[in-house]
């Protein structure tokens, strides 16, 4: 699949920008602050319904405007699909009609995503390795949602069940917290819901990780880390890969073991909301005991593994969004990355004040395009037409 063109209205620094792309490699070059990353962000937004950069939606709307609209036409499976998403508040952008496919309103983000698939490589990917577990859980859940029908629904059901149970725990009167006091019957009901949905979510995550892991091992070996591994860690079960009933049993036991503590804290203390993906190199923890270079390779391997899973699952390639990653990588890793990328539409940003690309980079891009039989188009954001 490929993006024919994107239109950005009042989005970040773009008042009104229309960009045409080629199905091959699109180099987007320009100085910092000229709106390069915003173009990738717009593409990503049409793929998953939210941005890959931190911050709330209102920050995406240009200063002085009340709403932003991002739209684009995607060619996939011999058809063109027009996608549009509204942000902020204004005529035609309510909470219920933010998402449109071929002009028709889609009520929820779940009905909107999937028409465009994208894998993003960004300097922030290092946080996947170095950052807190929440980022890795989100990564896994997003990959799972893209390739497993039902995962997105499961995740939202899990979040609801968890909020309900936490709300109930927090509402229990102080006197009744602690051992020996009366437990309301509805707490048992919500505990069972947490057990059921939590076990299903964990199962779906672990199945997804098994697929990711195959690609991860292969790719990390090519990146010079043959002994790198990734596994799922849940404090409440040593066997998350077992069948759902077994995992549910462990979660039930885990919750029972902290029941008193939960009543003191008013919070669900055990479950998939606290799990993690553990990355390691020959048993060394990738988060705390790897060099910066190794961590960059691990992050790259995770993204390339995500890409592999998508390649296996779908007939057509996702769009590759490479946000200024080349500046972060040494020449060896730049070469490795290009060798591992498949023939897919690629949007690649390069920060430069010069009118010409650096010769080394230019050659790397040309070699990649030639090897994969892709056209190259170079677009300069300092010259993009603005109305």
């Amino acid at each position, binding site marked *: 699949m490929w993006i024919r063109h994107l239109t950005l209205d009042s989005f970040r620094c773009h008042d009104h920008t229309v960009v045409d792309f080629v199905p091959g490699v699109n180099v987007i070059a320009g100085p910092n602050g000229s709106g390069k990353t915003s173009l990738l962000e717009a593409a990503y937004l049409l793929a998953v319904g939210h941005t890959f950069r931190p911050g709330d939606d209102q920050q995406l709307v240009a200063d002085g405007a009340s709403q932003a609209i991002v739209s684009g036409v995607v060619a996939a499976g011999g058809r063109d699909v027009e996608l549009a998403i509204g942000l902020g508040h204004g005529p035609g952008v309510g909470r219920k009609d933010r998402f449109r496919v071929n002009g028709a309103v889609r009520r929820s983000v779940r009905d909107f995503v999937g028409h465009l698939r994208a894998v993003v490589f960004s300097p922030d990917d290092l946080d996947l390795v170095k950052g807190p577990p929440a980022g890795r859980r989100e990564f896994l859940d997003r990959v799972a949602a893209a390739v497993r029908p039902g995962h997105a629904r499961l995740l939202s059901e899990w979040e*609801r069940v968890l*909020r*309900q149970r936490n709300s109930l725990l927090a*509402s229990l009167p102080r006197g009744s917290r602690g051992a020996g006091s009366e437990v309301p019957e509805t707490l048992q*009901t919500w505990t069972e819901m947490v057990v059921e*949905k939590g076990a299903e979510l964990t199962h779906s995550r672990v199945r997804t990780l098994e697929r990711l892991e195959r690609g991860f091992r292969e790719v990390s070996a090519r990146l010079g880390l043959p002994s790198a591994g990734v596994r799922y860690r849940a404090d409440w079960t040593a066997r998350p890969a077992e069948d759902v009933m077994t995992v549910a049993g462990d979660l039930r036991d885990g919750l029972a073991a902290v029941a008193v503590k939960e009543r003191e804290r008013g919070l669900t203390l055990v479950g998939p909301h606290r799990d993690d993906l553990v990355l390691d190199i020959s048993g060394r923890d990738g988060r705390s005991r790897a060099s910066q270079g190794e961590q960059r390779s691990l992050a790259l391997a995770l993204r390339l593994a995500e890409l592999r899973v998508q390649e296996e699952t779908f007939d057509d390639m996702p769009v590759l969004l490479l946000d200024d990653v080349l500046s972060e990588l040494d020449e060896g890793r730049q070469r490795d990355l290009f060798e591992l990328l498949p023939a897919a539409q690629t949007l690649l940003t390069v920060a430069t004040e010069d009118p010409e690309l650096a010769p080394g980079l230019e050659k790397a891009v040309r070699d990649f395009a030639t090897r994969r039989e892709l056209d190259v188009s170079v677009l300069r954001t300092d010259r993009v037409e603005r109305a």
Partner: protein
Amino acid sequence: MYEGPVQDLIDEFGRLPGIGPKSAQRLVFHLLGVERVDIERFAHALLALEKVGFCTRCHNVAAGELCRICANPKRDPSAICVVEEARDVVALERTHEFNGLYHVLGGALSPLDGITPERLRVRELMERVTAVEPNGTYEVQEVILCTNPTVDGEATAAYLLRELQTLDRSDLAVSRIASGLPVGGDLEYADEVTLGRALAGRHSL
């Protein structure tokens, strides 16, 4: 601001769900142009709502003490279908798959919204299920849990099942409406055929 009665009516329309100030204004100006007889019919229909209350048996909307369904002698009083809202009764009636009576809970369990079993008509349901006929037998033989296929609806069904099991009525059949409904949606949005199939394919618990 308009003349007293006009503004009053605009304000009243504006209080209704889904009607903004502009729509309210449009409706009122439309009414200003219609025949007096039409206004009277409209006013009459509104005033008639005053007499509508809730069925003392199943808590469905009712014009008298009992709703149309509870008052119908052809309905089978041994089966009770438990739903969240009166709207769900309408949706299930459209399927023509169920000939028993209903029980409207008035919502679903939700700690986030402060909805506890005490805020729902759970006690009333247990009373109906344990009510004994003059000849000493139980009238209710079957309970079908038809709460929405949402997290809150599932939790409510699970809670009710536990409560029903503590009633010391091993002869009572309890079932849950079959899956296959659009998950996460409400019963009222399901089409008749799907809903009818889900009701017919209910599984015992």
